[in-house]
């Protein structure tokens, strides 16, 4: 405890990790993130790319549901919109993938803000239902004849993943799959960094305060309506960027890739990884992608049953999510105060 009180002023609000230790973690994290480039062959690397993307989608959901307490069962819709914005711009208008990213983020941010407006009047379960209906509606809208010229209707759209640039291929041998993994990793890392900054400061505290005790939050001068709608916008933006990445990684979008099951599995990922946890979102993404595969490898006939069993085991064994387990282990190892 005494070490905590002696911490330098600026580090007070942030978890107290010394610079040296932070450096070690950074190198370790980079090594874990980059090792698959050499260790995995293309299909498994693709799966890992998708896991990174799902982690980003779960992070988005965690901002609005985990930190701000607004239940969304419809984040698959934002994922779909992000994917389609990128696909349409690349397939129909020949945009470069990178140029579509901010555009996908902006469109999803606006849709998210709009969804956040009725959310102000509807709390809890009602909001869950409204967002759920969004998740059901979006795939159907994407198929709709009025939009068919853009969206390709039921057939969907084909696109190409970004090519590794010449300056990179000239120096190292890198396949498009490896490059796509790198792109997903860099974009996701950037979003994680921004989200981390957001959550640990004034706005993050306000989001959590609004969730914990709205009346007290207002008495602290927090504008609940503004916070909630903006949280929805930011959340949709992040999940939308994940969708955009997935369109490029899969090189194909179709309405049936974004059923409401996607929304539910993002929600499951958030709970299993850790509600209101940035780190937990990483584990959530891994769960979303790999557990259904594991379930299918155990029983081809009834993967849903296996998935259910794995899920129940997770919830019983780790009631605070994987992030809660990591926190406990770190606390025991370091004897630190968390």
């Amino acid at each position, binding site marked *: *405890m005494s070490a*905590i*009180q002696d911490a330098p*002023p*600026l580090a*007070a*609000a942030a978890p107290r990790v010394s610079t040296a230790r932070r450096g070690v973690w950074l190198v370790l994290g980079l090594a874990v993130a980059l090792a698959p480039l050499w260790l995995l062959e293309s299909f498994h690397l693709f799966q890992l790319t998708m896991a990174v993307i799902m982690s980003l989608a779960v992070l988005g959901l965690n901002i609005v549901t985990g930190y701000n307490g607004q239940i969304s069962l419809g984040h698959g819709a934002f994922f779909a919109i992000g994917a389609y914005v990128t696909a349409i711009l690349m397939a129909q208008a020949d945009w470069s993938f990178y140029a579509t990213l901010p555009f996908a983020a902006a469109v999803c941010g606006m849709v998210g803000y709009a969804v956040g407006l009725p959310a102000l009047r509807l709390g809890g379960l009602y909001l869950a239902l409204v967002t759920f209906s969004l998740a059901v509606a979006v795939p159907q809208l994407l198929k709709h004849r009025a939009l068919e010229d853009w969206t390709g209707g039921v057939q969907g759209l084909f696109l190409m993943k970004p090519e590794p640039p010449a300056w990179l291929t000239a120096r190292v041998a890198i396949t498009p799959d490896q490059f796509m993994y790198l792109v997903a990793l860099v974009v996701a890392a950037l979003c994680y960094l*921004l*989200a981390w*900054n*957001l959550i640990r*400061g*004034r*706005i*993050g*505290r*306000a989001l*959590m*305060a609004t*969730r*914990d*005790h709205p*009346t*007290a*939050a*207002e*008495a*602290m*001068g*927090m*504008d*609940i309506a503004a916070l909630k709608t*903006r949280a929805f916008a*930011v959340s949709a933006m992040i999940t939308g960027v994940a969708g955009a990445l997935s369109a490029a990684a899969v090189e194909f979008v179709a309405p049936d890739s974004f059923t409401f099951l996607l929304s539910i599995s993002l929600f499951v990922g958030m709970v299993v990884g850790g509600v*209101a946890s940035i780190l937990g979102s990483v584990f959530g993404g891994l769960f979303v992608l790999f557990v259904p595969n594991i379930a299918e490898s155990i029983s081809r006939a009834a993967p849903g049953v296996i998935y259910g069993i794995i899920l129940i085991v997770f919830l019983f064994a780790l009631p605070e999510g994987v992030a809660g387990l990591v926190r406990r282990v770190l606390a025991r190892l370091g004897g630190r*105060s968390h």
Partner: protein
Amino acid sequence: MVRFGGVTAVGGVSFDVAERQICGLIGPNGAGKTTLFNVISGIYRPQEGQVRFAGTVTTGMPRHRMAPLGLGRTFQNLALFKSMTVRENILAGAHSAGSAGFLANALRLPRARAEEAAADRRARELIHLLQLDAVADKPVVDLPFGTQKRVEMARALISQPKLLLLDEPAGGLNHGEVDELAELFQHVRRSFDLAILLVEHHMSLVMRVSDKVVALDFGKKIADGTPDEVRSSPEVIRAYLGDGHAEAAHAA
């Protein structure tokens, strides 16, 4: 005036709290203290009348605008942010002192950093002042009631309010803790430039710390003055002790 259905909860009450004054609001159960408190803190909108704060009419104003004006408050049954530590709770109180939004925070722009550093500094001072050093980084839910009350006080003070509204601060505290609270009020008023409006059942605390006392009964103001004046007011004695006692108590 506030009516609930046909019942007038509070009517025709008017009083002032001067700068740097501690004003106690007392009255028997059902006198309308909490209703009046909720009107002042913006939870209720009165059907008639207005609340003025430093020249601004605050009645009908959105609640989140009150804190930036300089109105801080605590709650009767504690309203801490349960998922947070003591320090985080106190820092949350600094919200109205800052202005950095989503973008500035996500990018950690210099403005956001400066605000955060200033809030950190003030939180540290308050943690020290309210003797919360030992528990500063503990989750607030793990703490005893009296300590949580101090956290709430620190959270209200960090935004440097000009008027602090305290809703039954002594509720649930034991004798020793009430004494400490009385000292704390004096100390807070000496070191912060603020006035305090205190709604309180605990009569001896109110009489000890207040510069001025307002007494309510049945939604009406029945007395207003120094603690001594209010204590000896026949109306107040009648309200608290009933009719038969008024003469006797006054004589004594």
